[in-house]
């Protein structure tokens, strides 16, 4: 249909020749408004229908796993923030849990509570962005900014909790870097009151909008089997109808002490595993996260916020796999130690990477406009894909 611009890179030529003559090769990204970060999807289109979608990742590869081998354990904590800048707290927690297990460090109960509060607030931040950008990808800009507005409030709380708004570096081995400032619990509860009013308003604005729903239902359906075989995690997995949440099924930290529901897909319009199910699961998870934060703040025990541990621990030789339920799903740290003060080898398992692998399977047959909706609902973050 369109002539390939011959001055462009020759890398794409084999793909162009392999496809049908009527099809168009088009690069969506790495600089495209709806790929949310530097991700490239090489699309083969027939008209507006996608024949082939080829995700190309790696633009943001910073070799974080390799950095772990040359950085002392404590010094690696700030690097974990950069794995997923929208849900940095979980990356902190996973890394700390891995090292604590290996070194046999006990975390005080108050510290665990502080961690849970910080993590669940972080989940709110992430899901607000995710739901907002899903709306923005469908052309509704206002809901995005309303979500960002509320996110700013959580960011303010985060600043009060750990002094930072994006890259927190809040956790330490054996606890967290600092205790709650006086009056902070009140601030958090005030925010939760406000937030509980915001969600119904947001739902009225966009989640119940007929155009919005029709753009998402039955678009990009990921059946349960596919979700499992591709290792999806978190909201993406639960939206496909699989009731699995690490916080409940593989309890860690103090999560067993809280009451919360695990939302799964298929309870709203459309079928389980479609884009709308993923969107709704995130909305419902925000409600649950707010509940957990409220319970944790109200039941915050007294005690130490940081255990007495060496500044830079040198755990014994061995290996450990620690995983947390990140906002994006299972975030796993596979850590091998040789007894020195830094990791021998670290492998980080992220759910965004797994989510990218679903795209070539599900995307063919949908339209370009559907792909932005589908991609938005997967909630992929480029740095987490590439590490």
């Amino acid at each position: 249909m369109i002539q390939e611009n011959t001055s462009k890179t020759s890398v794409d030529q084999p793909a162009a020749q392999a496809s049908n003559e009527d099809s168009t090769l088009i690069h969506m990204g790495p600089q495209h408004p709806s790929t949310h970060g530097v991700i490239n999807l090489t699309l083969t289109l027939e008209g507006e229908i996608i024949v082939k979608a080829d995700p190309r990742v790696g633009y943001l590869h910073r070799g974080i796993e390799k950095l772990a081998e040359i950085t002392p354990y404590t010094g690696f904590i700030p690097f974990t923030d950069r794995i997923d800048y929208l849900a940095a707290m979980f990356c902190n927690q996973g890394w700390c849990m891995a090292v604590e297990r290996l070194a046999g460090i006990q975390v005080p109960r108050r510290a665990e509570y502080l961690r849970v509060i910080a993590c669940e607030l972080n989940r709110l931040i992430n899901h607000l962005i995710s739901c907002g950008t899903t709306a923005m990808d469908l052309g509704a800009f206002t809901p995005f900014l309303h979500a960002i507005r509320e996110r700013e409030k959580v960011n303010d709380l985060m600043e009060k909790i750990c002094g930072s708004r994006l890259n927190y570096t809040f956790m330490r081995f054996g606890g967290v870097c600092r205790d709650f400032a006086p009056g902070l619990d009140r601030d958090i509860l005030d925010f939760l009151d406000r937030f509980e009013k915001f969600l119904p308003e947001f739902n009225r604005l966009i989640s119940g909008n007929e155009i919005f729903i029709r753009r998402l239902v039955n678009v990009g359906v990921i059946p349960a089997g596919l979700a499992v075989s591709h290792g999806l995690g978190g909201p993406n997995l639960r939206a496909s109808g699989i009731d699995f949440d690490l916080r409940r099924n593989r309890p860690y930290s103090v999560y067993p002490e809280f009451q919360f529901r695990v939302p799964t897909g298929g309870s709203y319009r459309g079928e389980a595993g479609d884009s709308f199910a993923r969107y709704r699961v995130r909305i419902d998870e925000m409600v649950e996260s707010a509940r957990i934060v409220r319970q944790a703040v109200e039941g915050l025990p007294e005690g130490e916020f940081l255990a007495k541990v060496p500044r830079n621990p040198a755990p014994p030789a061995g290996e450990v796999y620690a995983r947390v339920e990140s906002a994006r799903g299972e975030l796993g740290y596979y850590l091998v130690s040789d007894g020195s003060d830094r990791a021998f080898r670290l492998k980080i398992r992220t759910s965004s990477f797994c989510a990218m692998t679903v795209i070539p399977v599900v995307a063919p047959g949908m339209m370009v406009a559907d792909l932005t909706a589908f991609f938005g609902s997967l909630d992929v973050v480029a740095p987490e894909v590439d590490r």
Partner: protein
Amino acid sequence: MKTGFDNLAARLANVPWGETLAAALWLLLVAVAVLAFMATFAGVTTWVERRIAGRMMSRIGPNRVGPAGFLQWLADGLKCFLKEDVIPDAADRPLFRMAPYLVFAGCFGAFAALPFGYGLAASGIDAGIFYVSAVTSLVVVGILMAGWSSNNKWSLLGGVRGAAQIISYEIPAGLAALSVVALAGTPNLQGIIQAQGGWPWQWFAFHNPFASIAFFVFLASLLAEGNRTPFDLPEAESELVAGYVTEYSGMRFLFFLFAEWANIWVMAALIVTLFLGGWQVPGAALPDAGTGRTFWILASAAVFFMKTLTFAFLVVWVRWTLPRLRVDQLTDLCWKVFVPAGFVCLIGSSACVLIPGQGAWHAVHRVVQWGLTAAGFGLAAGLLWRARTNIKNLNERIYLKVWT
């Protein structure tokens, strides 16, 4: 308007080619006046839209240039004129350079026939609504040209989408307009307004249920023709980068935007003209001539502007509220809903023309008109009440000064 031209012609009567010269001068004068109005409206609307959008999004919007940021549009315009006009190497240069002017011309051409008040129109062309519908089609050519000549695949997708969309939606828009033409008995825009009255129940939107449906079909179709959300697919930012304007920069880019905002006026004015009584002043019979004529012209223009600006606001409001349809949903909506509905409206409205001016049928018609008017205003009031409640609830948590 005739009088002004007559004066000019009389003054130039002794000059050779006087009449032709007078006609040419008059045309130029009218064109400049309309262009000045269009430019001012488009410019100011960019500021208004951004302020409204800002308010809706709980942010402030432009507030630096001039009082409350009012002069932002001049600054932006100036900036765009000073920018480099980048033309991609592989672009089809003549087409690429021409496309913005076609879009602009299509929009500007529509202003020629639009009424602004009683006896106030650049041209009282008899073809009226047909002329507007025809001349705005130039926009499609421009969009398609821009999409093709940019030699960019996103642009091409946007251009093709734009062509498909605008051509599709001209049909329901035309059908809805035809049902009004059937009621008014003339396609002349001034004639259509004169066939309506000043009071709401005399408007064509509330003339009969078919005309009411035609009103909504027309409103949605015009939004689609003007590439406004929820039908802004040709330049869908999150899908097609910027659609057919992806490769444009500087002044040419400005021309596209200029046409888009000027088009808001065209949309709103057409809706008000066809369905909402145009410039008719409630309870006043406008004199053809005489002492009070100037006053009545101004009064009618004020009424027309008020109605039109209300709808311009509605267009802006809708844009910042709704998400965008998918391209197949868009064409589905057009061909499966709006086109059949348009035909039903046309046939139904034509049948309603047969209702006699007196007797039992006339009484029933009056009741239906009042009922439709009440329903229409009830709908508007409900919408406003809901908006007000939402704003009030929000203000408990957020405080934004509107004018700073």
